[in-house]
């Protein structure tokens, strides 16, 4: 597989969960538990495809599992109005814990995988790519998108305009969860089809958190998110390449690069100059209490 193909393949793994999270955050719900939802997608996808022999059922199962995790986060943060950072952390730990426990049976190479169709890229890649303009269109051109954005900006305004806040936000967490689950299925069935279990380094390698940071970096715009995902995909693959080019240097240095860049970006976007322009959804992370 060429460098470019590998880059694209790696990028998609950032894009999918980030796109879902972007949508989720536009409705005002912050879910930092991407990592946990992706892992559940991985587990559901690998288990279903192994048991049934059908990879596409595996993809559906992955999305369902991610969606379910999203709904759990929704129940906690929308219905029970739990602090969203706390709830999201719970989703992350739950995902890691469940997959470490139930995934034991599926350790090893995955039997059924999704074959590439064009230039070494699988159909899921193109699905993900198509989702970018679709999400952009829905958010900025449709009535539903306007409702979602309004709920994320100012729920009390949305409510007096006759919009059901809870329902809109539940759709947000569901979409976010399903795309994370899809990312999990993509990872295990198409991108790196081998299941290994480690409490310390799950198969996702913390990339769910990079995806989360990318949402902030994208300033909540799908096309910028696409650019950011490609940038990180490139960085990710570069890490692998550099270690073959420069064998003297410990491998860990290179593998650190994407994470360091993430930290740098998070610092950058927290500066005042950036914050003013970013267009953060004003109600992001705040549970909605009626009459406040």
């Amino acid at each position, binding site marked *: 597989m060429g460098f470019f193909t590998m880059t694209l393949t790696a990028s998609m793994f950032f894009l999918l969960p980030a796109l879902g999270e972007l949508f989720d955050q536009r409705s005002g719900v912050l879910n930092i538990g991407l990592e946990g939802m992706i892992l559940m997608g991985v587990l559901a996808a690998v288990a279903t495809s192994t048991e049934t022999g059908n990879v596409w059922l595996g993809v559906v199962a992955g999305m369902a599992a991610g969606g379910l995790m999203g709904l759990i986060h929704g129940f906690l943060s929308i219905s029970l109005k739990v602090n969203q950072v706390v709830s999201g952390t719970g989703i992350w730990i739950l995902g890691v814990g469940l997959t470490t426990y139930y995934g034991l049976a599926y350790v090893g190479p995955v039997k059924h995988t999704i074959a590439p169709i064009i230039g070494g890229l699988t159909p899921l890649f193109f699905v993900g790519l198509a989702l970018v303009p679709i999400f952009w269109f829905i958010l900025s051109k449709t*009535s539903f998108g*306007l*409702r979602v*954005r309004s709920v994320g*900006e*100012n729920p009390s305004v949305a409510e007096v305009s*006759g*919009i059901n806040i809870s329902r809109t936000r539940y759709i947000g967490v569901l979409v976010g969860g399903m795309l994370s689950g899809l990312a999990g299925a993509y990872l295990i069935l198409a991108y790196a089809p081998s299941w290994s279990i480690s409490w310390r380094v799950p198969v996702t390698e913390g990339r769910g958190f990079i995806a989360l940071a990318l949402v902030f970096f994208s300033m909540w715009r799908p096309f910028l998110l696409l650019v950011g995902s490609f940038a990180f995909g490139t960085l990710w693959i570069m890490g692998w390449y550099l270690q073959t080019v420069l064998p003297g240097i410990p491998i860990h240095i290179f593998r650190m690069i994407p994470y360091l860049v993430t930290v740098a970006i998070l610092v950058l976007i927290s500066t005042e100059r950036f914050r003013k322009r970013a267009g953060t959804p004003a109600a992001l992370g705040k549970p909605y209490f009626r009459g406040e």
Partner: protein
Amino acid sequence: MEKRPEQRSLWKGIKRGETVLEMKGITKRFPGVLANDHIDFDIKAGEIHALLGENGAGKTTLMNILYGILQPDEGEIYVQGKKVRIRSPLDAISLGIGMVHQHRKLVPAHTVLENIILGHPRAGKVLNVRRAEEELKGLCKKYGIKIDLRAKVWQLSAGERQMVEIIKAIYRGAKLLILDEPTSVLTPPETRQLLMSLKVMARDELAIIPFITHKLPIVLKISDRMTVLRNGKVVSHLKTKGATMRSLAKMMVGREVLFRTKKVEVKRGKPIIEVRNLSALSDKGVLALKNASFSIREGEIFGIAGVSGNGQHELAEVLMGLRKATGGKVIFRGRDITDSSILERWKTGIGYIPSERVEVGSIGDFSLVENIAMNLYFDNSFSRWGLLDYKKIRKHTEEAISEFDVMAPSADTKAKHLSGGNLQKLILARVLSREPQLLIANLPTHGLDVGATEFVRNKLVESKKEKIGILLISEDLDEVLSVSDTIAPIYEGEFMEIVPSEKARRDEIGTMMAGARPKR
């Protein structure tokens, strides 16, 4: 979006003067309070029916019930003679009832157009922006409203935002419009514009309910009928013709109210503060205060008249040290304090009444004693051996409570249990008891009822006798005119003029608040 066609058709064929809505025996209890006590209310097509009452009289509760935000404990609502239940704002909207709120009911980051079509059933799955834009342009033209539909809402003035909300409600099919204190954020010319538009709307058989606390002249000018509430009960239903300011105020407050603030004439002393070419940025990083220069002398009230968002809050914050000046100097008693800390300013004798009494002026979960201590903790005479002398602070608090007529069960009551007026009296007492030389009062009567407003204004005027200089910031032109010795209308961060009150003319100051340059 759900549709309820059978209810929508209720409004078909209504004629001017027909009763379109009746509320009968509406009762609503909150813990410890009877907010609405068997209220009867009705409104006819094509009339402007003012709902009057002091804060806490039950106006907002009644209208929130009508708009479906609250559910009544007892009572019934009839639209065109048919009994209805309004469970949510969505129900109200589909019954043709629209409400324009005073605060924060638009999304600032979205455009005017996006705000108006938000939640509109005809917006389409894919937004049909062009059609909506054309329809809205027609609507604006009809009612004489000028607004840029593509502007972002955060760029608009408070008055423009309100117009957007009104258009939104009408575009949504409202035949009955509820307006929450519609003129409180407007400049005088904007008010005139609004009243004209409302009259035109009423001609189209639209029923309009503005509810208003103390802007009685406006009510007398535009309304056809009124309902006056006091302590949750209807005091009177009356025709506007024949009503006077005095008779209305008496009904609202339950006693005679003087519409004049006491006049206190004192000789002005030495200058206390001199401000030279002061500039500052707003939170958004825009130049909000531009080269302001003025001085305040002992016994002088310097009144800044302007609609919020024109740099007056930035000015107050710079003077108190809460915001950095980007240029210019502040001289206090001959000393440059431009870069002094907030605490130094308190200690040198500057007092501050912030505009947000609940968020900034007090800590709700603290007792009154603790709230008073917030301004005394740095004062050595209120501590002993490095510990706060709570006995002394309590005594001080009790004196303040009785002197300023704060209605509170005890000094240990939590601040959040005080009404707005009583909380403001406490804050005023706290500041004045420190005997400041300069008092910065930012919107000191904003949102207070007639009685409390009168009290606060009189206290401010009386303090002139103590040689205190006061910087008064107000959106209420009548307040500035009646209290101040010097008047400075502010617009977009600049003083349009600085005039002694003897020479100030109401209409001139009003137009300057809206940006007109002085003719002289």
